């Protein structure tokens, strides 16, 4: 057991820290004031593209197994690096972090399911460092969030073509994406077995983005509704091609035995909490002399400890789940511990920081109130806190989940 962070990771987080200070934080504050997402032509994105940020993708790497990969694999550092970078980026601004160029959630879907041709066609453009590019991913619908088996966006075959109709919600970055991986169903009564994924290119007739959801926080990225009205596609747009779906009893696209995403979102929550902690620390150091025997200061001292305790415990839960993913140790339960614990811990931490700052903390220019609005999303995205409890109950306590 060793809890030190190796230099190969800190050298990367230092780079994120520089970008965060220069770009993430000011852009995030600006977006919060105006309510508009960071524009796609922002200098930050060109800089990142130039640095090769969007180009670190592997094309044509076929997955070893599909869906249920229970084989042990060689230990890497990917998940641990991911949580550290995610925490640092969210420390500066989680909303801006979501807008960073790259294939986004569509990337793993393409790499895991896509044919060689699809991967080449849709991922190769990201290798061009002169221009920032985005991909997007649309699963959630207005009527189906946690329970993805309930999606109703239809894909029907007609004369050898696919016709898509439906609506997707909370589709991040789809306003600027070259393509969106859209999930639809051939038959809603089949649950996941009826699901098909399509790559829908920007400008496809029938595809529109009628609105950006106005949100409480995380305003730096656009959460879009995506409308599909008689969108006509061929098999070349069916992710993985028709053969991918043959003889399958449904696929676990989103549920993996080695989960790196839930620890990542958990770490992002902790990053937001740490931002509140650091800001509060400055406010305290500049305004209060806590060594004085003032009753309110006694409360503040106690709350400082409460904040630290929650953030430390959460951070380590996310690290451990990531460490397990890196070592091919099934971490479904531990990833859910982290994902269930960290967001609520971070919400409480930010809230306690506001207690410490007092009524001045309500002012938008005080920054921590923004974090309070931002951080709540972490308990909702990537499986709500309730879904995490459900996962733990099922995996550890045999809960059948009816």
């Amino acid at each position: 057991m060793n809890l030190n962070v190796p230099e190969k990771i800190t050298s990367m987080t230092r780079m994120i820290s520089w970008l965060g200070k220069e770009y993430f934080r000011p852009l995030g504050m600006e977006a919060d004031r105006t309510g508009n997402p960071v524009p796609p032509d922002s200098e930050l994105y060109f800089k990142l593209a130039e640095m090769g940020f969007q180009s670190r993708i592997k094309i044509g790497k076929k997955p070893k197994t599909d869906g249920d990969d229970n084989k042990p694999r060689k230990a890497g550092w990917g998940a641990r690096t991911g949580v550290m970078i995610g925490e640092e980026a969210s420390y500066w601004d989680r909303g801006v972090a979501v807008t960073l160029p790259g294939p986004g959630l569509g990337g793993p879907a393409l790499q895991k399911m896509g044919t060689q041709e699809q991967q080449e066609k849709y991922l190769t453009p990201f290798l061009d460092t002169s221009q920032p590019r985005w991909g997007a991913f649309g699963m959630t619908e207005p009527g189906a969030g946690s329970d993805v088996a309930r999606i109703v966006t239809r894909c029907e075959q007609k004369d050898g073509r696919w016709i898509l109709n439906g609506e997707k919600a909370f589709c991040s970055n789809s306003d600027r994406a070259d393509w969106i991986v859209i999930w639809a169903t051939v038959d809603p009564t089949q649950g996941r077995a009826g699901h098909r994924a399509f790559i829908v290119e920007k400008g496809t007739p029938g595809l529109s983005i009628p609105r950006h959801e106005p949100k409480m926080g995380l305003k730096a990225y656009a959460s879009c509704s995506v409308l599909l009205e008689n969108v006509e596609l061929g098999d070349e747009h069916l992710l993985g091609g028709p053969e991918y779906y043959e003889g399958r009893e449904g696929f676990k696209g989103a549920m993996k035995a080695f989960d790196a995403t839930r620890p990542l979102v958990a770490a992002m929550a902790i990053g937001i909490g740490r931002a509140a902690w650091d800001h509060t620390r400055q406010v305290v150091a500049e305004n209060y002399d806590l060594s004085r025997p003032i009753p309110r200061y006694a409360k503040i001292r106690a709350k400082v400890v409460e904040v630290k305790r929650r953030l430390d415990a959460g951070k380590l839960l996310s690290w451990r789940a990531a460490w397990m993913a890196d070592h091919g140790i099934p971490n479904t339960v531990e990833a859910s511990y982290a994902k269930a614990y960290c967001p609520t811990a971070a919400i409480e931490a930010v809230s306690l920081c506001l207690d410490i700052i007092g009524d001045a903390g309500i002012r938008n220019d005080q920054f921590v109130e923004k974090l309070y609005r931002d951080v709540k999303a972490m308990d909702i995205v990537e499986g709500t806190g309730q879904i995490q409890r459900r996962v733990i109950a099922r995996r550890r306590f045999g809960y059948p989940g009816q």
Partner: protein
Amino acid sequence: MDFSISDEEQLVRDTAADFARALRERSREAETNGVHEQLQAQYAEMAFESLDWPEAHGGAALSPYLKSLVVEELSYGCAGQMLGLEPRALVQYAIAALPDGDVKAALYADISGNAPRTLAFYIDAEDRLTVDANRIQGTIPWVPNSSADALVVVKQQTFYLVTSGFELNAVLPCGLQAAGASEVLVNAQAEQAIELAPDAVARMTAQVRVYLAAALIGVARASLDYAFSYTEEREVFGQKIAHHQGIAFKLAEMAIAIESARMLVMQAAFALESGPGDSEAALALIQATEMSLSVTIDGVQLLGGHGFVKDHLVEKWMREARTLSLMFGGRDGAAIDAEAAGISNWGFAAA
């Protein structure tokens, strides 16, 4: 960022877990009769008490983390018997805090070997004792011992050794009966009064807190596992109790809380390897206290009426968690120290 333990550590942990099963079986009997002699002999053979003591003083010098894992496993069996089996484990941290010299060597000799002496140990966090020219007076409300050859008191920065002029009277404690329980009446001239270095006191306190926090985790785990088995066997309204979502979520929340406290114990044990670990250990004890109080109370609740009666062990763990978490200053003492450390270490002091 490595959460693995070595094969050797795993072996030690498994051995502790095996032994804990024997402790569990005797839980009830030990509450009235104390630790069985045979288990004492077996435990002495295993030499787990001195697992983290320095090699120079007969210990195995293994890591604070491994010790915490062993304490967790043994407490999963029975925390009261564990304290009775290793009555020197905690006072050793005070002895380790002494400056090197004859007194330290002599005390280590006392607590090691084939016929080790028992030193009752009290940190006077609540200022219950008065000291005047090294004369100690007052009443210690409770120590987990039925008898003691000597008494060690740490008050503020001073280590006092009392070898006569004190008496132990049996009391009935809320939990941990198996270890024995006594109040200590002291009116004695301390044989030794030794000033400890501030860092040494911080480290001693941290080690004690990690020990207690690890024990609380073991107790809470025991309660969760037991309550889960019960709710899985019994049915209400046509299905297993555990399969009602209100219960399933409760079990999940208990598990999450336990893991969060475990992480902080791990962090504190790691900090002890390279420094005093004082603020980390204080955080761990606060977390473990809050977690264990809620988990062991829920453990009773999940068994309903059966939880309240002595046919089942969940009521014992509820009493045990409350007892362990009041020792050595409890969570309030930890919070006070964490606040002091926090203001100076975490950058909250006025510039």
